[in-house]
């Protein structure tokens, strides 16, 4: 039986060039995008899937201007992730797969876990947009990227951050007494 083989034809020059350029963008943004998503979603596997989906869409439809790629990627990835979580409602998707790295010291591990729990609690008490802004900024996103990701004017990002951080510090202190922000 002969099965029709799909033989890839040699990539056109422009396609290779485009792929190389894309790889550069991917490499530049991957770690930060993944980190922010993992912290926002509390789930590293979901964060990776969402990030891949966002990069895929970027590849499919490159933007006219590249200078807000970070923000765009974050926005799309978040959207994808929330949709996936809604679609998988029946299953226990929100089990956090995030685990503290084993430090080998029980006290240190316990402390790490406590801090993490306090951070998650604080993030959850923030309005969603504020939490996103805070996580993005603390992973190095520019105001322009944050503005683009959240759909707000860039000149409001400073205020958004200041309020988010004030609230975060307050809630964190409540869950983690003995630590003065």
């Amino acid at each position: 039986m002969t099965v029709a083989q799909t033989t890839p034809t040699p990539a056109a020059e422009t396609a290779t060039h485009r792929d190389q350029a894309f790889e550069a963008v991917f490499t530049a943004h991957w770690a930060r995008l993944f980190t922010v998503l993992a912290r926002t979603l509390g789930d590293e596997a979901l964060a990776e899937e969402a990030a891949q989906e966002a990069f895929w869409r970027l590849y499919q439809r490159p933007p006219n201007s590249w200078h807000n790629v970070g923000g765009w990627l974050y926005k799309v990835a978040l959207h994808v992730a929330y949709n996936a979580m809604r679609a998988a409602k029946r299953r226990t998707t929100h089990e956090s797969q995030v685990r503290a790295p084993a430090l080998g010291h029980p006290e240190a591990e316990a402390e790490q876990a406590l801090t993490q729990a306090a951070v998650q609690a604080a993030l959850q008490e923030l309005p969603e947009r504020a939490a996103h802004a805070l996580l993005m900024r603390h992973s190095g996103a520019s105001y322009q990227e944050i503005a683009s990701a959240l759909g707000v004017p860039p000149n409001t990002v400073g205020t958004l951050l200041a309020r988010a951080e004030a609230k975060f510090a307050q809630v964190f202190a409540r869950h983690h007494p003995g630590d003065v922000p």
Partner: protein
Amino acid sequence: MTHLSEGDLRAHLDHELPASRADQCAAHLLTCPVCQQRLAAMQARVEHIRATLQHLPPSSQAWRLNPRAAYRRFQSFTHTKELSMSSKLPAWLRPALTGALMLAVLVAAFTLAPARQALSAFLSLFRVEQVTVITFDPNALPANFANRVDQANLQTLFNDSVDVQGGGELLAVADAAAATTAAGYPVRLLAQPATELLVQPGLTAKGTLQAAQLQAILDALEMKDVTLPKDLDGATLTLQTGAAVVASYGNCVRYADLSAATMRGPRTGGPMRGAPRDPSCVALWQMPSPQISADPATVDPRPLGEVLLRVLGRTPAEARQLSQSINWATTLVIPIPTGAADYREVTVNGATATLIVEAEAETPAYTLVWTSNGMVYALFGFGDAAQGVALAQSLK
């Protein structure tokens, strides 16, 4: 004097103020101890939060962080995606129209790697009466899925040869009458004139299954806990398809260009890349309900259905349960990657139809699938799916 706003202070800390405002703020800070203090407090808080967040995973050692490895994983991800979603026509239409694969018709139900298409063919008796959508997570597939199964050599699933009769080249025909003659059944079309009208002759293919090879494929996929029923071994499967007719309307990519693009490997671009999605483009696909029969006729399709569901990422328990609940003999199963599309049931002239709409796209692609009087229909278009439903209702 008025003090600096929180927003200004914060942006100043980040050096994100526009130039003129930055100068004003700097000047104010020089002479205002109150704002200097507020700035210092804010800075301390920011620093504290930064340090606290470091405790959150992912740690800098997290394996997913490495960009090079991530890019390689991304490449596998895109390979899977492209096989399923890259075409303007839904992927499941393509194989039925190329006609070269023995499993062309059931490939309509399974959009990804050849392995899945092969597995999906092993149903004892199959006549499409209904359609059901199964979501799956393409990233939950075993790593290197396509490679591993190719290596297991699908061709050996059947002993030496599969006997194929019919099939052949796609025919372009001039009008409905010519299509009806070529297809051998009354072809239904939309009222507007078709831009392209094609007929894919039907075929009959027959092969004898070798269970040992199927088991080897399952082993390659690391599904060692699945045992196949003994009566599969040596069973003869016969696939019969009638002629498929494709009519395209409006401004669609010509089928010849489309099929050339889809036959290329992934990541090579081609005419589909960035092709504009013209809302005037509508494609109608129709075909008599395909049939698969098995000898012995007692072969139970459910274990195979279960395997398929496992391949699509369901746990063993879920796969078993789901497989029991699907009437495999009468159901066309369409797998959709989770989140890739929204789907719901609609009615087309009293018949239940499945509407699948691409998610997250400016001009979403939609597919409407339904069965009626022993025929399977699919209507494909861009943009407003309600228009698609109306067109489907208007079929003559």
